[in-house]
């Protein structure tokens, strides 16, 4: 279990817009092992989706990788041609999006859309593809698949559509399933169904999952490890227990303090993170969280903190964690 299915090293990615260079990713380092569930959390605009899409070679114009390396299952993704990339996308990694309505084609039946994926990525006849489509729909908990295959997306409920999306994503038997906010648009009781489905499929099909969400509850319940992103940087990464019970980055701590806990018996005031998210067009020199950090020091404003390893799995980028490095920089910052 120690080899890495995905290994992202120091990824930098910018969007070159008329208004200037939007530095969407500033040094993202992440890995995921086979069979693992990794959660990516962080506020809107922190780069969660951009990270996931770049892993599939899907970076929207005017975005461009400006540094770093991405490996997937031994392939060096950022050195591959679009054609080679397409093969990986169809066969080894799949993605499901937040809103199934925009990613399903409204004018084709459900059956058409599932069959298409199967025919494209596996060697099957029409008839076999049809059988496989029914099998996949049953796998994601849809009854009477033959009937459903004849229906159009708008005839299904939101939860049902998300199940269909998952079935399509599974058509190629991926090694990695990326789920970008797969339940944000759904009600909690339907969310619970979809999350349970994803976990049971992971066991059955032996794949890895990256789940992107802003809901700390979702990651607490289903992830092995969690990466916390802020302003295009993975500021902290660790096992789920490490992130929740030994958070070390000031942003992670702030995030955990700012959510209400349903199970709390008495009323405690929430402790919000002060200030506003950073402007990616105008990133500060030092730690991106410096202006909102309650423990910000001089060195934080000037220098980007390096990662400190806290355990085999746990690393975090904050000056408070490494006294030695900090003292050295602090002296530098003062002179």
């Amino acid at each position: 279990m120690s080899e890495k299915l995905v290994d992202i090293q120091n990824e930098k990615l910018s969007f070159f817009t008329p208004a200037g260079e939007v530095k969407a990713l500033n040094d993202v380092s992440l890995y995921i092992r086979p069979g693992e569930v990794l959660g990516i959390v962080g506020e809107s605009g922190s780069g969660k989706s951009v990270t996931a899409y770049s892993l599939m070679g899907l970076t929207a114009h005017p975005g461009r990788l400006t540094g770093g390396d991405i490996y997937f299952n031994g392939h060096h993704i950022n050195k591959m041609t679009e054609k080679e990339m397409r093969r990986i996308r169809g066969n080894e990694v799949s993605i499901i999006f937040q809103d199934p309505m925009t990613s399903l084609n409204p004018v084709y039946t459900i059956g058409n859309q599932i069959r298409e994926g199967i025919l494209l990525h596996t060697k099957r006849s029409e008839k076999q593809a049809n059988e496989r489509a029914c099998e996949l729909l049953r796998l994601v908990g849809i009854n009477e698949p033959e009937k459903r295959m004849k229906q159009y997306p708008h005839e299904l409920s939101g939860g049902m559509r998300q199940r269909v999306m998952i079935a399509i994503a599974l058509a190629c038997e991926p090694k990695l399933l990326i789920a970008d906010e797969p339940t944000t648009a759904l009600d909690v009781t339907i969310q619970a169904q979809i999350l349970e489905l994803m976990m049971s499929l992971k066991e059955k099909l032996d794949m890895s999952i990256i789940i992107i969400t802003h809901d700390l509850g979702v990651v607490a319940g289903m992830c092995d490890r969690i990466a916390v992103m802020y302003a295009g940087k993975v500021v902290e990464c660790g096992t789920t227990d490490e992130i929740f019970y030994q958070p070390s980055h000031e942003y992670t701590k702030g995030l955990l303090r700012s959510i209400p806990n349903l199970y709390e018996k008495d009323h405690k005031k929430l402790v919000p993170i002060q200030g506003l998210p950073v402007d990616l067009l105008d990133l500060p020199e030092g730690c991106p969280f410096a202006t909102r950090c309650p423990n910000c020091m001089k060195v934080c404003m000037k220098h980007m903190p390096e990662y400190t390893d806290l355990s085999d799995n746990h690393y975090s980028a904050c000056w408070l964690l490494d006294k030695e490095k900090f003292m050295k920089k602090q002296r530098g910052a003062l002179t």
Partner: protein
Amino acid sequence: MEDKKLVEVQHLKEYFPVKGERPFERKYVKAVDDISFYIRKGETFGLVGESGCGKTTAGRTILRLYEPTSGKIFYDGKDITHVNMLPYRRKMQIVFQDPYASLDPRMTVGDIIGEAIDIHHLAANSKERRDRIVELLSLVGLNTEHANRYPHEFSGGQRQRVGIARALAVDPEFIVCDEPVSALDVSIQAQVVNMFEELQERLGLTYLFIAHNLSVVKHISSRIGVMYLGKMMELADSYELTFHSVHPYTRSLISAIPIADPKTARAAQRIVLKGDVPSPVDPPSGCRFRTRCPYADERCAAEEPEWREVSPGHFAACHHLDRVKDEKPAIG
């Protein structure tokens, strides 16, 4: 908190006409179907439930933005079901979910707030008007120079503050807050939730707080009502509802909420409901929850359960409360 009822609804119904399948067939979406509750002066009453269960409709009908199909609405002891609402518009305000869509993009923030002051003639001259705008901005944590800016120059959280300042401009007593933090990032959500609490303390406001996120609703509310398909399923004080719920729907709703604590999450007993919410045009007979309820039997299909008080201040509508009670809740 006083013990006086500020707002009360009795057997409130709001049906919207929709086209049937055959020509000239008339059908109704029973968006709110016979709900009764009251809100005490100075308290926050939370309304939760899944999408389409009628929360927004209930809030808007109370403000008479929709004319009620039947039932009664009382404000401060007076029946306002059919009266001219003009005198009440100032006292009863609303804050919307989407801070982006609810502010006019062509108006400065100062003018957005000023407009409400002008409509109700609350300022004698332009200096008084300006002072009032500055006061309102500082009340919601913005500063004077923000008055000359346009909504697009603000973040989501700041825009929500502008929406609240606009509602506060007329000195209301009661505010319907319809998903006011749902569109915000969690870190910003906490800022706005705290502001709602502080404003309530300072100004003695009464809130109807509508949201689908029970964790947020429980945090801010003193009492909570749970809706499903236009009906109220359970109503209790927020501690009681969270830890001693008696209704099968409330219990499954609570158990479906992801817990932001890995150890509790691993230990929790989940009740995963099957299926989807049925259409509000042809709701199930008897109890509306029966198609998804783990306890449902023939009686639930035949008879609508009665809304009754199971203990002081704790109401629920279900035929099998005794059976539910014997089972351990998801948390406790």
